[in-house]
């Protein structure tokens, strides 16, 4: 008689991680550990992960890195910004800089009291979510931002995450609270330095209170060979505005889970995304906008340009709940394939339970119009310029929605360096 022992990869993986020492509610940690103990890494049989394989992540043998004093090159998106830097989810005070902003509390979670972190875990769903659970149980650190009511933040703020080392696993947790009538724009930049086969699992919870206005610019630029799962859970109170611009410029596997609960009337929600892929990149954007209340507007525009053997996934879900009348919800996803081996799986979904709403969604995937390329060439443009011009125009729809000049300049610089595209 023989016994087959099935080895749980997730259990083996988490054994190598350091349990969180952050002062989260014990219930959150307990629930997270319970979820993990009964889970395995998701497979493509799971509808949520149908097109994204996490086998490369599961195969990592997490290394514990203890030395966090190494000098790193300066990673920055906005000059003269208040800058907080995390290396592998560990705060690097030596690399962080900037002055105190009135009405704004910014500090690493390790410097927070239990009272400050009492709401952490309220938005990020544990049940059925392996990566949120892993993050809740093993988060090392992350940023805490509290913007006091009536505070209009003019100063730039950027949070820089840098992944380093081989087979590093970073569980980074962020918590943002924008109190009533406040306004801010925060840049999140994800980079890597000499990293290989490393994984950044980031969970960010964001509360946008009554009449507050928050913009997040999320720039993902980790080197090839590294993996990111970035989850944002957002909750909007009435009269608030929330905008998130997600720009994915590199990284071998990037999965974004963006869930926005629109829980108050008269809210505006903007989701803009651009992903520019080549080589063997795989980028997956899963978004959920959940309209729970009436009289709100949401606008979602995601566009991607996919070259070589890269693959992109877009799954955008918009819920309009029964009582959420007078909703305007628009969603659009467009893709351009630049090579025969590039592919896209796009799934826009609308679930409407109210009867007086205006909603639309659409998805397009195609190649550059060869007639247009010829037309431009017939005017003297090289084939390369013609294609670049058309790609720029295509992705420009998303970029023109970005207000931060720093973010735009950074993005254009990367696109120039990485793809030779001028905008």
């Amino acid at each position, binding site marked *: 008689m023989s016994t087959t022992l099935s080895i749980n990869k997730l259990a083996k993986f988490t054994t190598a991680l350091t349990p969180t020492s952050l002062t989260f509610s014990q219930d959150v940690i307990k629930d997270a550990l319970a979820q993990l103990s009964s889970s395995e890494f998701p497979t493509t049989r799971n509808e949520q992960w149908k097109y994204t394989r996490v086998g490369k992540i599961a195969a990592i043998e997490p290394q514990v890195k203890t030395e966090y004093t190494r000098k790193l090159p300066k990673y920055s998106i906005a000059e003269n910004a208040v800058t907080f830097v995390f290396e592998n989810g560990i705060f690097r005070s030596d690399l962080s800089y900037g002055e105190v902003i009135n009405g704004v509390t910014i500090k690493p979670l390790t410097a927070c009291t239990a009272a400050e972190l009492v709401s952490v875990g309220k938005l990020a769903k544990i049940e059925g979510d392996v990566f949120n659970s892993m993050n809740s149980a093993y988060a090392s650190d992350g940023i805490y931002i509290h913007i006091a009511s009536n505070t209009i933040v003019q100063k730039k703020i950027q949070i820089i995450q840098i992944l380093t080392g081989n087979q590093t696993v970073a569980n980074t947790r962020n918590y943002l609270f924008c109190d009533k009538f406040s306004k801010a724009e925060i840049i999140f930049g994800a980079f890597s330095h000499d990293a290989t086969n490393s994984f950044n699992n980031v969970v960010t919870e964001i509360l946008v209170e009554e009449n507050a206005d928050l913009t997040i610019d999320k720039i993902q630029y980790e080197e090839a060979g590294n993996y990111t799962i970035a989850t944002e859970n957002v909750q909007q109170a009435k009269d608030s505005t929330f905008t998130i611009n997600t720009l994915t410029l590199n990284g071998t596997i990037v999965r974004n889970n963006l869930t926005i609960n629109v829980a108050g009337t008269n809210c505006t929600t903007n989701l803009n995304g651009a992903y520019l892929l080549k080589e063997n990149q795989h980028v997956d954007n899963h978004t959920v906008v959940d309209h729970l209340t009436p009289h709100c507007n949401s606008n979602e525009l995601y566009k991607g340009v996919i070259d070589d053997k890269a693959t992109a996934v877009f799954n955008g879900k918009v819920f309009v709940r029964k009582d959420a009348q007078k909703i305007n919800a628009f969603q659009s996803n467009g893709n351009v394939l630049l090579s025969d081996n590039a592919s896209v799986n796009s799934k826009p979904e609308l679930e409407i339970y109210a009867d007086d709403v205006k909603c639309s969604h659409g998805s397009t995937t195609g190649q550059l119009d060869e007639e*247009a390329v010829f*037309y431009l*060439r017939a005017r*003297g443009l090289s084939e390369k310029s013609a294609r670049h011009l058309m790609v720029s*125009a*295509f992705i420009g729809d998303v970029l023109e929605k970005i207000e931060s000049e720093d973010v735009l300049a950074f993005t254009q610089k990367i696109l120039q360096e990485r793809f030779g595209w001028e905008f």
Partner: protein
Amino acid sequence: MITIKNLHASIDGKEILKGLNLEVKAGEVHAIMGPNGAGKSTLASVLAGREEYEITEGEVNFDGTDLLELSPEDRAREGLFLAFQYPIEIPGVSNVNFLRTALNEIREYKGQEAISAKDFMALVREKSAIVELDAKLASRSVNEGFSGGEKKRNEIFQMAMLAPKLAILDETDSGLDIDALRIVASGVNKLKSPENATIVITHYQRLLDYIVPDFVHVLYNGKIVKSGTKELALELEEKGYDWIKAEVDKH
């Protein structure tokens, strides 16, 4: 300016041009007329460098260079311009932006300095006036949402901006009302000089009242079968093409 000798071209294995000869000198306007399916647009496409066509025989000498060896962009840079029969809409690509890129790539090809933003805008203003193209249209996305007449005027505006040696107008008159036709034709006439030449491809004699050709050629079954002066166009208008077809088919 351009000498076409025994040009044979086919698409998908079907021969369309079957030994076409044509010579156009600087300062001249040539009209090419012919019934549907004669190969008029194929000639324009082949000269502009559309890659779907296979050249099986013949040569085209364009001001001393072997035109058929050049990429479409290099033909444009050498001074060839094709006004499209169906101008393409390119959403998001601004008319003036792309023209500036085009102009600068042409200048670079010729070893000239890039044009300054100020000079470029002055040029846009000057040239858009020639075809009475609203400055707003000039800066909108290429042909997007343009009416048929606006698209054709935009073609002539681009021609004015690029100042080609040889312009080929492929059925630029089709679909135009008389006012638009007059504006387009007057634009072409204003751009005419002793140093450049124009080939006007048309189905109708009407355009030739406005752009007066020095020579009229009849293209039929892939060859130029008859050449004459502008009176030939009038004769074709009156009698149609059947008498020419009959004359050719007899042989």
